């Protein structure tokens, strides 16, 4: 549902069905909604069968990269004598994204169940849920849910009476965007500085504490119980874009739009309908100018591109951007694109872990130039310099934070060059410049 708005008839509430339903938060209420039946079912299955069902469902990672979940799980080799870990990435820090927050606030037991099934399927003895430091309420809800689950014997040495051990722990991050990067998350979980690690080795080989680890997004894991209960075919059939993108997806919508909130639609839903129908279109008297559809690190779309987009992994790529985390940031005609992009760059500069030279220096440099242009102090060379810096920042660092900072700058200059040039040539009214003149 378009929480906090009432569910729209064209939504497909699967994961978000209980958003706003206080009863579903506690264990008893959750059981009444059919909770933990999937875990019961899973524990009676062979782990390999679960992996096969998830593979068949076509479920792809909902954190941003869209890697097939079943395939990721099959990289784990249980029985190699090592400890195995499942990490749930609940460090939802991508600007514009707040779907995991709502999942944890309203259906914490859904995540506990998803983690338990995931851990059992990949042969992980321990699952960790790494929650963003600023998420105080979701953290409290998750801690309570895990406590309840242990007390009820759902987790622990004899999970749901199956004789199988499933452990889930909740860990609070310290509030760093970069800790949502999977290897930085592992460093942080280990008690180190949250710096991304060089890959290879990949987490499935040497992850948390140097042991084989699988890391999944909250939304990914929460989808698994539904797939187990209803079958892979149900999940695939739901989507308009099967078999490449399957199931439903939560989109967090914010910015200059009539009804911001979380919306769950099936893959392949028309983005135009989504923006104008479900979300109610632009605020009164305004028109949309641009959309950043997948969190701050994906390319900006013009409205022509956005209105032609099918909402799935491939659809967004076809229209020059990415599905990303599903954080839709809408920008209307009253906004200065340069100011918006400068703000995004400032975010990335603030959050750079400072390991790689191009990211540490490049994000800050980009921000300084962007803010200079914004303030009417730009020069004719600045755009070329920005593009050249962006080139140096792309594909050359350990993780993609540096690339993410370059993305809005490059797409912004490409698609809204006029706004940049107007500020540089001072043809735009600017209060500071007007006062000086």
């Amino acid at each position, binding site marked *: 549902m378009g929480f906090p708005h009432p569910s729209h008839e064209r939504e497909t509430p699967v994961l978000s069905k209980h958003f706003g339903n206080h009863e579903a938060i506690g264990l008893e209420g959750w059981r009444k909604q059919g909770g933990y039946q999937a875990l019961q079912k899973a524990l009676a299955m062979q782990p390999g069968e679960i992996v096969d069902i998830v593979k068949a469902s076509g479920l792809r990672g909902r954190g941003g990269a869209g890697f097939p979940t079943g395939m990721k799980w099959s990289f784990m080799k249980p029985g190699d004598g090592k400890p195995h870990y499942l990490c749930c990435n609940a460090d939802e820090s991508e600007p514009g994204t707040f779907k995991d927050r709502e999942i944890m606030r309203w259906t914490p037991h859904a995540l506990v169940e998803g983690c338990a099934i995931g851990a059992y399927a990949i042969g992980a003895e321990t699952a960790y849920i790494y929650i963003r430091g600023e998420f105080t309420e979701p953290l409290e809800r998750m801690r309570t849910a895990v406590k309840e689950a242990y007390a009820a014997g759902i987790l622990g040495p004899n999970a749901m009476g199956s004789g199988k051990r499933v452990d889930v722990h909740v860990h609070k991050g310290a509030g760093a965007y*970069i800790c949502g990067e999977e290897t930085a998350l592992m460093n942080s979980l280990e008690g180190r500085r949250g710096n991304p690690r*060089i890959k290879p080795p990949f987490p499935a080989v040497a992850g948390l504490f140097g042991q084989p680890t699988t890391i999944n997004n909250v939304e990914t894991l929460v989808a698994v119980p539904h797939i187990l209960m209803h079958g892979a075919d149900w999940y695939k059939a739901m989507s308009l874009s099967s078999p490449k993108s399957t199931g439903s997806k939560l989109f967090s919508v914010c910015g200059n739009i009539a009804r911001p909130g979380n919306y769950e639609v099936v893959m392949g839903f028309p983005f135009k309908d989504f923006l104008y129908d479900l979300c109610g279109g632009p605020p009164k008297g305004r028109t949309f100018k641009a959309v950043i559809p997948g969190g701050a690190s994906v390319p900006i779309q013009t409205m022509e591109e956005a209105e032609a987009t099918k909402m799935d992994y491939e659809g967004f790529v076809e229209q020059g951007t990415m599905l990303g985390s599903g954080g839709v940031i809408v920008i209307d005609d009253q906004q200065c694109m340069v100011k918006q992009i400068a703000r995004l760059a400032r975010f990335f500069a603030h959050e750079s872990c400072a390991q*790689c*030279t191009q990211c*540490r220096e490049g994000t800050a440099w980009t921000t300084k130039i962007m803010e200079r242009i914004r303030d009417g102090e730009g020069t004719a060379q600045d755009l070329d310099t920005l593009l050249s810096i962006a080139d*140096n920042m792309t*594909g050359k660092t350990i993780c993609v934070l540096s690339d993410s900072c370059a993305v809005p700058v490059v797409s912004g200059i490409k698609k809204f060059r006029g706004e940049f040039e107007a500020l540089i040539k001072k043809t735009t009214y600017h209060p500071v410049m007007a006062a000086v003149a």
Partner: protein
Amino acid sequence: MATTVEPAKAVTQPKMINLTIEGRPVSVPEGMSILEAAKHAGVLIPHYCYHPGLPVAGVCRMCLVEVEKAPKLAPSCATTVAEGQVVHVHSAQSREARKGVLEMLLINHPLDCPICDQSGECELQDYTFQEGRQDSRYQEPKRFNPVEDFGGDVLYVPNRCILCTRCVRFMDDVAHDTVLNVSERGDRAVIGKFEGKDLTHPWAGNVVDLCPVGALLSKDFLNKARSWDVTRTASVCPGCSQGCSMTVETRDNMVVRLRPRPNDSVNEYFMCDYGRLNYRWMNRQDRIEAPMIRRDNALAATDWETAIPAAAQALKGKRVYVAASPNLSNEALFLLSRLVKLNGGAGGFAVETGPEAPLPGVEDLALRADRAANGKGAELLGFVRGDSSLAGMQNGDVLIVAQDELTLIRDGELARASAVIVIGAILPEIARHAMVVLPTANCTEEEGTFTNLRGRVQRFMQAKAAPGMARPTWWVLSDLLAALGEKTGYFLPSEAFGALAAAHPHFAGMTYDSLGMRGLPVIQHQLPGVGGTA
């Protein structure tokens, strides 16, 4: 007699990988990084954060190279070689990437090379000159952080720091003393010091050498010399029996800095602060500048042609006792042992000791308790270690004090000597009683070899000139032996060493050439108990 000199190790032959780097085919063991493999191919891949003595960080992104068929540039320090790889280090794409990194490293750098101690030996300066941009496109104000005292011998200049984290990794992974960290994020990041911690670890000074730029400076060396003013000489640290390979840096005949010289068999890339800062005695100005003989109850300067026969005259037919310094070279000790053999008598030495200080991250590397370079060599050449320099002296012996300042003697021991001959760089107290004083060079002023505690024989070179008429110890002793009728005739220290190698089975077969700059261990089976990696 065993002829192998390197300790035999059970090494399984590693699988070899063939690849091409800059058009040069090279075959290296499996698991090696492209950066190291490139060294084998004679190609230096510019880098900052990588150091062979530290764990790989892969953060400076300077060593990005183009690997054919790879989707993007690869960090060569963190990418292992693969069969058939074709690597381009100087392709347009790799050069552009490095140029980009260099520009970014410089945007907040103060460009204060004219007042920076690192200038001239700075990798940021070198690579920028080599392939950086001529100008900067950066127009904004530069980041500023004040200079900070990191404790010990180390100053931190954050404005010059490139955050390569070599210092952090050295303290964490080699010194096992977590003092440094990266504080803050983004371009506010600096190297920080944990609350209440200082760089007081006995090996902490290495962070200054490891720093590729002028961010970590030695307080001791601060403003002493520009790097192009110094003369560098390969040597061996005389500070303790570990015998770390080092470089002596002199300016105008004064030692201004000692730094480690890489030697995998002894000290890898490191040197302790005790050894590093223990150089002021090398510059002492109160030196004996001329030979002296006793005339009218006082010492009077003379020339070598008078002093050597006078010393020989005093020794003729007398039993001798040699109080040798454990910092004498093998060559000098060998010639002294010949003197003892010729005249009858004995030789002994005493070693000052102090607390041991290991470097945990490197096997068998420590500041050793024995604070002298060549105690092992003295023992191998027949000198007896005692708690006093004169422990083995008999009544009536002619005492030869060789480079020893006799700080370690007991009351009344001196009275047993019938006559005293001093051979050394500094006048010891006992010179009041000397018949003859023969001035010599100290170990930075002559060439020779030391034997470290694991029995590794290493060469050291002459770093500066000896004052006045002082001569190398081996030369003085060789002349003295000749005056006593012995066959010597050495014109070079290598010849004295050759004679030593011919006479002593421990050193059999060794020459200066075979020792090279990393040394060789003494012959194994002659010396039970000596072994190990050093």
